[in-house]
């Protein structure tokens, strides 16, 4: 059953390079006629270069941006132009994990208070034991709740980001380049964590990445974007086996291959 459905969505933003003397700034169309739907428990990879609109699409799906054209429905309810008050009850059910956990955690609040605000606002138990349980679920010690974001490592901060998203028991999560700032072994840990949470909670997951090898290991379906448009989509296996457009072929060709000749470095 379809959880989130975007139909022919376009998004305009004011063009900051253009200063009008009178009246409004010129508009820049950064998403053009994009359609995408996710079923419960399904994982879709959004892939593209920087500036291709994958993050904007992700934020549109969460109704952080209001689409300029098209319609957006969550669980059968039209939220294209919903007001903040109408969105409030839905907010808990759709969450986001950010690329840069450094900037997504308020430096003035402890991890515990960041989690507690989120829980309290959504009328969930924000006691010490439940926060410790959430931290434990993402592999952090309970003592992390007293720490400030700058006192954690990058991998730990990304775990806090995931902890926040899953603490609210959402149905839909947008993960925006969540592993691109991490080293490979930490990447693998965070991805394992995400997979575990997804399978456990039946999340619909929009996984935004420019790293095709990560997308291939995680996503059933993949959407390739370029210049604000979807250029190709399909099952991950199919797209990787027979890419239809030249752009996709280039992207696939750019995946770094593992070491082909063992021991070449020693020679």
């Amino acid at each position: 059953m379809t959880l989130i459905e975007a139909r022919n969505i376009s998004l305009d933003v004011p063009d900051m390079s253009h200063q009008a003397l009178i009246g409004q700034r010129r508009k820049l169309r950064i998403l053009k006629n994009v359609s995408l739907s996710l079923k419960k428990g399904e994982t879709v990879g959004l892939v593209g270069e920087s500036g291709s609109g994958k993050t904007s699409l992700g934020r549109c799906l969460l109704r952080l941006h209001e689409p300029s054209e098209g319609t957006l429905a969550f669980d059968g309810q039209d939220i294209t132009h919903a007001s903040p008050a109408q969105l409030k009850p839905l907010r808990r059910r759709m969450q986001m994990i950010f690329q840069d956990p450094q900037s997504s955690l308020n430096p003035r609040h402890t991890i515990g208070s960041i989690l507690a605000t989120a829980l309290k606002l959504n009328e969930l138990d924000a006691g010490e034991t439940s926060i410790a349980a959430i931290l434990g679920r993402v592999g952090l010690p309970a003592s992390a709740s007293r720490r400030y974001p700058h006192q954690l490592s990058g991998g730990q901060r990304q775990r806090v980001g995931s902890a926040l998203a899953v603490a609210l028991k959402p149905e839909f999560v947008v993960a925006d380049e969540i592993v691109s700032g991490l080293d490979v072994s930490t990447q693998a840990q965070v991805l394992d964590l995400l997979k575990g949470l997804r399978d456990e909670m039946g999340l619909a997951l929009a996984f935004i990445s420019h790293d095709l090898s990560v997308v291939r290991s995680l996503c059933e379906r993949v959407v390739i974007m370029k210049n604000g448009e979807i250029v190709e989509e399909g099952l991950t296996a199919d797209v990787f086996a027979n890419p239809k457009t030249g752009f996709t072929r280039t992207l696939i060709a750019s995946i770094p291959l593992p070491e082909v000749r063992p021991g070449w470095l020693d020679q």
Partner: protein
Amino acid sequence: MPFSLILSRALSALVTLFGVMVVVFVLVRVAPGDPISMMIAPGATDADIAALRAHYGLDLPVWQQFWIWFGQVLHGNLGTSISMKQGVITIIGQRLPATLELAIFALAMAVVWGGFIALVSTAWRGAWVERLIDNFNGIMLAVPDFIWGLAFVLVLGVLAPVLPISGRSDPSIDAGLTTQFYILEGLLRGKFAFVWDVLKHMLLPACALAFPLAAVIGRVLKNTMMDVMVQDYITLARIKGLSSLRILLQEALRNAAVPALALTGVQFTFLIGGTVITERIFSYPGIGNLAIDAVINRDLPLIQGLVLTFGIIFITVNMLVDALTVWLNPRLRHA
């Protein structure tokens, strides 16, 4: 804050104060004008003048005069005012509370007003409200405090006399206070009618001092708020379901306040400097007004004492701002 840091700050404050003492002491003696010539009666002989000079110690070399004064200051004695024939500490002690109450009242107005316009224009960013506030702010920023003061005197004191424009309180009211902290003591003793009268006298000079500062606070705070509002943690707060007001106050303001706070500290010292002219315009009996009298009378001990007082105020304000900045920023607190 670690103890060693506090200690080094305190030491550098003392060094600064010493520098202030040297500079002002030398400057008032190098500058033209002679306190003795201001006080001699016509027809005084050269011997009378020399005797007066010796009486005030002005016949000694400047460095010797300085060490005598420096020794006195270390013993808590700022000397005797030449024009007012009273201890400098006594005079300043009587006038300082008036200036402190005025400056703090003006600062409070500026922070509240500046913070308010920053929050409103951040909340309605991109809308006409923001442009209106920006333009209004530009006017407040462009006009200096003494022009505001003169304008208030003309418009609200002369054309439409709605507020008092001189003094600190109505002389016909005798509140029977023992200190010069009229507002503080008046509130503590429950003399609200008197406090109200003092506030009315204070309102126009305080506005003149507060307007430019409010504009600076408003502008800087708005800019830092705008930087903060595009951070991911603000988006995260929206996703968490926080209301716009709570996002502004709880998530954004504390992050944005730090740069604005540092600037407010610096600007507050300008505001205290501005009290000199503003108090004159409103005949307000504070140390700023006193400073002008002291300069006119070439009252060297009083000038030195006043500059030292201003120096202590500036240094204290700066140290308070440093402490607040550290307290507000956990990253510095744990450094």
